[in-house]
């Protein structure tokens, strides 16, 4: 069954507004998605009716809040098909999830001369934590090269693998180009040399069906706000045995079993990694976001987004001066492009004047842009609530802008 676009759009209050006198067309979904009414309601309901600190509260509100909080954890467990909900750790976002692994797994298991492999496609959040760790430990960061289409060179990746490889941290779907990496193959090859694998799922979780058991990744990091949920909340999935082998992340309440001034023992996972009062309201609202996705179905969403992507590529390719950036065979619904002789900032601003929200610049992937010989791109990214008629408006806008310099 296809998407009933008007019905879905009706669930997103923010979409129904004008920007600079034009109806808003929101194509910045890879940066953050909009939130359906159910998520907004879950947030206000929590603060209106259930607000309370969770775990160990001896009263009805604390009990309700704890139940909803842990139900959300279970919903996320099923969403990514983790073995158990204890493998789902709440963080501030993908960036914190990656930093958590760098500072705990990294602190314990990475030693001088060890190697960590990432790819050219990485977001800065999957580069800098590893650079910091490598600098501290005297470890070495290796980079998987890509071809001009924006696909990793798997043969070159295999050459980088050795007994020294301790961790491969790779993006599942590129935020800048949309490339879907062959992560199952990457994970199997990394495991063959005894390395652990972290997947940056910030982009992939909203577009692809995720099965962490089938993928067999050791960690997966993602953010709620790119999945129709609230900002400031993310998840780190980790295999139980790996999480148990790691030292805690931050010290504080919630993460302890027993504290004495002589010695503290730590709580079980996931609490060991969740020091302090968590982001309760947003976790509960995140469940509403996942429920929204499940109601439509990932397959249906993907089919709709794929259709939008191919329609956009077809429409925009006809424009003189347009060139796509990132033409991988497997892509999520991200269309990065440039207009000949025009700076992406200028294109983005002209589109904004038409009510069309896109992102411009290096998309926090400066090494990737350098590899492609570009300062940046214009990025239009499509979501469940976008329509073909919006893409036609984008094509009209880009066409008018391109004519300034491409007569």
């Amino acid at each position, binding site marked *: 069954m296809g998407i009933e676009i008007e019905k879905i759009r009706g669930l997103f209050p923010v979409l129904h507004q004008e920007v*600079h*006198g034009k109806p808003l067309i929101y194509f910045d979904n890879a940066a953050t998605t909009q939130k359906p009414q159910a998520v907004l309601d879950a947030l206000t309901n929590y603060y209106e009716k259930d607000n309370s600190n969770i775990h160990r509260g001896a009263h009805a509100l604390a009990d309700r809040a704890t139940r909803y909080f842990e139900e959300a954890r279970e919903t996320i467990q099923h969403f990514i098909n983790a073995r158990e909900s204890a493998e789902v750790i709440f963080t501030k976002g993908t960036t914190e999830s990656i930093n958590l692994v760098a500072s705990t797994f990294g602190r314990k298991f990475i030693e001088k001369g060890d190697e960590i492999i990432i790819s050219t496609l990485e977001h800065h959040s999957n580069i800098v934590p590893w650079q910091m760790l490598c600098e501290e430990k005297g470890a070495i960061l290796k980079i998987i090269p890509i071809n001009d289409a924006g696909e990793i060179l798997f043969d070159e990746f295999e050459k980088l693998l050795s007994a020294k490889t301790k961790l491969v941290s790779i993006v599942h779907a590129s935020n800048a180009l949309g490339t879907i990496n062959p992560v199952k193959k990457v994970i199997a090859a990394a495991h063959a040399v005894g390395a652990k694998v972290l997947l940056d799922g910030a982009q992939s979780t909203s577009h692809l069906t995720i099965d962490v058991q089938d993928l067999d990744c050791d960690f997966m990091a993602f953010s709620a706000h790119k999945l129709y949920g609230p900002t400031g909340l993310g998840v780190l999935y980790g295999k139980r045995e790996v999480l148990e082998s790691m030292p805690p992340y931050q010290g504080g309440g919630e993460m302890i079993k027993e504290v004495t001034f002589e010695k503290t023992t730590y709580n079980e996972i996931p609490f060991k990694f969740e020091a302090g009062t968590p982001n309760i309201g947003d976790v509960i609202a995140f469940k509403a976001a996942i429920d929204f996705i499940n109601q439509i179905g990932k397959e249906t969403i993907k089919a709709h987004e794929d259709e939008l992507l191919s329609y956009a590529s077809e429409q925009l390719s006809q424009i003189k001066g347009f060139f796509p950036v990132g033409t991988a065979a497997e892509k999520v619904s991200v269309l990065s492009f440039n207009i000949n002789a*025009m*700076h992406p*900032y*200028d294109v983005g*601003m*002209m589109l*904004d*004047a*038409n009510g069309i929200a896109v992102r411009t*610049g290096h998309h926090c992937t400066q090494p990737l842009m350098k590899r492609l010989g570009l*300062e940046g791109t214009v990025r239009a990214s499509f979501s469940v609530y976008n329509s073909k008629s919006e893409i036609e408006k984008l094509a009209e806008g880009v066409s008018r802008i391109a004519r*300034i310099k491409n007569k």
Partner: protein
Amino acid sequence: MSSIQEVQDEIVSEFEILGDDKESTIYYIMELGGSLEEFPDQERIEENTIKGCQSKVWLIADEKDGKVHFQADSNTDITKGLISLLLRVLNYRSPEEIIKAELDFVERIGMGSIIGSQRSNGFASMIKQIKLYALAIQTKQNA
């Protein structure tokens, strides 16, 4: 030569003609960039860039007959247009005039809502750098 205030008034009335249509306003700003004088290639270096701008902006200044002569360039057309507006008001004036100049046209044309808050910060950095150059030249003149 018109006074700083007269030039600013001119700019304000040009933008009033454009009205509320954001697209035409941006087109207009982009076109203004074309009026900048040719920027010397050898000056397109890191030391001449303005910090705090998202896009690259190069700005240099020298003294001509006691006045300050600015040259500027950018890799984006909108930014070029923005600098050309500033230079239209402030180029070839005495250091003292530049330092004292109150650039009320920025607010009067609603620059903040035209270019957004991030670019507005960059625009403020340009003004600051222009004034710093003027101050440096004034110091040299008084030495």
